């Protein structure tokens, strides 16, 4: 059963704290993505990873960085989180169509 997992599902942090969002997939997909979703703005691509240590900026990379050391894992890191990074974050993986994880709801106070 093809699956994308995300941890944690819910997270509350204070402004200035570091945040680590984890994503895993069991489909051996080379390409993985991080999106954020805000009301009225749809899905916005933060980063795309084409394979291990092969990452590219998406449309809104500022304030984020990523790490991919294993094909099945893709992490999103917020160094010194800001309140405007409060959002729902989705990870996805694909060969052709994209499979999305369940999302992480991040609140930065």
């Amino acid at each position, binding site marked *: 059963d093809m699956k994308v997992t995300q941890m944690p599902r819910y997270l509350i942090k204070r402004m200035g704290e570091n945040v680590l969002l984890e994503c895993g997939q069991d489909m051996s997909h080379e390409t993985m993505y991080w*999106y954020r979703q805000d009301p009225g703005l*749809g899905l916005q691509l933060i980063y795309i990873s084409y394979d291990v240590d092969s990452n590219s900026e998406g449309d809104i990379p500022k304030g984020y960085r990523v790490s991919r050391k294993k094909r099945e894992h893709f992490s999103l890191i917020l160094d010194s989180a800001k309140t405007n990074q409060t959002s729902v974050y989705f990870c996805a993986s694909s060969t052709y*169509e994209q499979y*999305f994880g369940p*999302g992480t709801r991040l609140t930065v106070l």
Partner: protein
Amino acid sequence: GDSVTQTEGLVTLTEGLPVMLNCTYQSTYSPFLFWYVQHLNEAPKLLLKSFTDNKRPEHQGFHATLHKSSSSFHLQKSSAQLSDSALYYCAPATSSGQKLVFGQGTILKVYL
């Protein structure tokens, strides 16, 4: 660059009426197009994708026809159900095929 336009932010209709959600795209080539559906508090899931041989994709009563002449891939269903209430994204693939261009999406609300 590649872009997508879903003209309606919100579509409301009564159960049993036909559904049509508009999607037009701009691309320098003929991309594959996808429709994703996202129910409340869930992840987006693939609903339909265009074919290379002009077949009309269908799933769960929904269908979409790719019209290259008008750069459109409108989503249709003959009779809306309450369970169709969700956020719908039309997404063309970029030339590399690995990135999808998501717009704001269209919220469909179906009432009794």
